[in-house]
């Protein structure tokens, strides 16, 4: 692990100045913090792309951590929903979203003189279905955590050492990931998902997803939380119905990462870079 840490610091020093795509998640928060430590605050800018697909609690986290840890931070609006190719919700939806994000961030980087743009992809992301990575590759976006071979567990451990409040934050992909491929992504559906997930969080649940199936909300709760979810079914039903769902159900399998990707019988894995 020490050698991975050394590799990361070397990569960051080579970058000289860095603009970080900063969602408020575990990885990008960690990367921004380490980049500030390594390059100095004057050479780092963390930029959050704000749109309806970003959960508002993540935006709040991004803002709070930037303030508390001295990370220069900027928020820019992105408009992926206006792209019909994205809104149609194809298997490669993330490509169109990331294309929009990186185009906006590239403009900021050029305007402010940042040499390199980076994302928070890590070594565990390497075999997953990630069409968004292709958009990053096209625009020369680097992935220092992945290049250093750092896994999510290692990033969490290092984040904890640094006192980052995100060290044990559950993984939180964008809200559009709760909508099955082929069902269009709309602002209304994203709002429904966000309201439902906020309500469940307010009930004390922590590791779950609310999947949008039109009139039906299908809750995938971590297996450790599933019995509690079933025990409090009336509260859960009330909370999620209030977000505009006619029916509410608990997935019998429980939460698993990328559950909506289970329909992808065959897909092309996007090659991701890793340093040797």
């Amino acid at each position: 692990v020490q050698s991975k840490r050394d590799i990361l610091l070397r990569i960051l020093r080579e970058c000289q100045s860095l603009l970080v795509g900063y969602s408020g998640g575990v990885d990008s928060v960690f990367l921004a913090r380490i980049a500030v430590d390594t390059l100095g605050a004057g050479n780092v800018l963390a930029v959050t792309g704000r749109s309806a697909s970003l959960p508002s609690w993540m935006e709040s986290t991004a803002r709070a951590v930037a303030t508390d840890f001295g990370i220069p931070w900027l928020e820019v609006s992105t408009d992926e929903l206006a792209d019909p190719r994205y809104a149609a919700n194809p298997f490669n939806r993330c490509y169109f979203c990331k294309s929009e994000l990186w185009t906006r961030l590239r403009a900021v980087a050029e305007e402010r003189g940042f040499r390199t743009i980076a994302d928070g992809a890590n070594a565990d992301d390497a075999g997953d279905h990630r069409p968004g990575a292709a958009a990053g590759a096209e625009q020369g976006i680097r992935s220092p955590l992945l290049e250093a071979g750092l896994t999510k567990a290692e990033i969490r451990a290092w984040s904890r050492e640094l006192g980052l409040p995100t060290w044990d934050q559950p993984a939180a992909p964008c809200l559009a990931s709760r909508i099955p491929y082929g069902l269009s992504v709309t602002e209304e559906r994203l709002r429904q998902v966000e309201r439902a997930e906020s309500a469940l969080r307010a009930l004390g649940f922590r590791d779950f997803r609310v999947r949008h199936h039109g009139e039906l909300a299908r809750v995938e709760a971590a297996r450790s939380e599933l019995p509690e979810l079933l025990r409090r079914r009336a509260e859960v039903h009330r909370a999620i119905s209030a977000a505009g769902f006619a029916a509410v159900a608990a997935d019998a399998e429980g939460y698993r990462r990328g559950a909506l990707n289970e329909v992808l019988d065959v897909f092309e894995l996007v090659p991701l870079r890793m340093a040797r």
Partner: protein
Amino acid sequence: MSDPRTSVSALDAALAVLAEAGLAGCGATAAGPGGEVLLLSVPEALEEAITGPDGTQLRARLRDAGFRYVALDLAPRTDFS
């Protein structure tokens, strides 16, 4: 996967799987825009048989009947008797 609602056999097959597992008291419908969710109404005493570790094979057989997901309806329970 075809739309299970276009095929009565998917739901029938799921009901047969439930009956075979001794869960004939469960209600079942296809839900979601493509009927991709098998929505079960389950008496509390039978939930563990479906969601617990021993239900792994049962869940797989229910999916094999023609559904992508198996889920328990959280609507207020009706009388199953």
